[in-house]
């Protein structure tokens, strides 16, 4: 059986705005992306899922708080529980935290300003399906654009995450007040990751940096492996 192009679902919530960029970037990296509407109660046959950025449900109440109860999110939780690969970008990260699929929570930036610029990142771990194409300690430049990207965990939770090596990406400079400059985390099992920077906006040098392709192509490769292994 050959499956040169892994199928990657891109969830679409009302208020999402980076869904098409995610679709385009995954296509460019040789995956077969498919949109999944938020009201779907079942996912199609997929090798990975991406929750894109945006402002699902207008960011009402708290970012991601409403989206986590979308019917499709129940299917995503089941997919993740089954070992499926799930990547949440920006609002997708916020949704995964609210859904308890990832640890911590994203709060308003310390400055209260919306931050929109390329930021330097440090890769802390490369033994994940999302960073396998990076080198440990490698510096990446990927844009952020968020008003609520200040990741927070209390002391007990943070120490636990440090011990279990769940911090995957850090900002190399202060960006939004995130605890210990955390920019991306994985769940304990390592099959769900969230990050505030937007790799889908950085897959072509024409856009200023193509470092985001390292993250997304790691995911595409891992999804392909899963497809070939028949999950």
């Amino acid at each position, binding site marked *: 059986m050959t499956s040169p192009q892994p199928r990657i679902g891109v969830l679409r919530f009302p208020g999402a705005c980076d869904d098409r960029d995610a679709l385009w970037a995954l296509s460019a990296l040789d995956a077969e992306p498919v949109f999944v509407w938020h009201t779907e109660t079942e996912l199609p046959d997929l090798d990975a899922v991406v929750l894109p950025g945006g402002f699902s449900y207008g960011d009402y*109440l708290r970012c991601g708080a*409403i989206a986590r109860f979308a019917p499709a999110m129940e299917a995503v939780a089941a997919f993740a529980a089954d070992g499926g690969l799930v990547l949440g970008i920006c609002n997708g990260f916020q949704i995964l935290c609210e859904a308890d699929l990832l640890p911590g*929570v994203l*709060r308003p*930036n*310390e400055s209260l300003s919306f931050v929109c610029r390329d930021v330097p990142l440090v890769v802390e771990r490369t033994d994940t399906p999302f960073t396998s194409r990076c080198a440990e300690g490698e510096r990446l430049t990927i844009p952020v654009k968020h008003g609520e990207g200040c990741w927070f965990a*209390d002391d007990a939770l943070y120490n636990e995450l440090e011990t279990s090596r769940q911090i995957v990406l850090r900002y190399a400079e202060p960006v939004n*007040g995130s605890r210990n400059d955390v920019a991306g985390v994985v769940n304990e099992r390592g099959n769900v990751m969230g990050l505030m920077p937007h790799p889908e906006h950085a897959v072509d040098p024409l856009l200023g940096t193509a470092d985001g392709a390292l993250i997304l192509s790691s995911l595409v490769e891992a999804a392909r492996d899963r497809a070939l292994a028949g999950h």
Partner: protein
Amino acid sequence: MKATVLVRPKHGILDPQGQAVESSLRQLGFAVGEARVGRVVDLEVESDDPAGARAEVERMCEQLLANPLIESYEIELAAPDD
């Protein structure tokens, strides 16, 4: 039955919104200490039984209205005669 939920940033959690409000109040000449900004949710609950209504609103808070990592909540039920 009417219920009011007060959601607050937990003690010790940085509240930049509160800080901005605090500094604006000071600029206006008010002598204020720390300001914290939370959220109010007014609800109508079908149940007429105060204990049942409170338990239901508590479940709403745990599941949706507050994030226990960063927020605390208080529930006020209107007196039945209101």
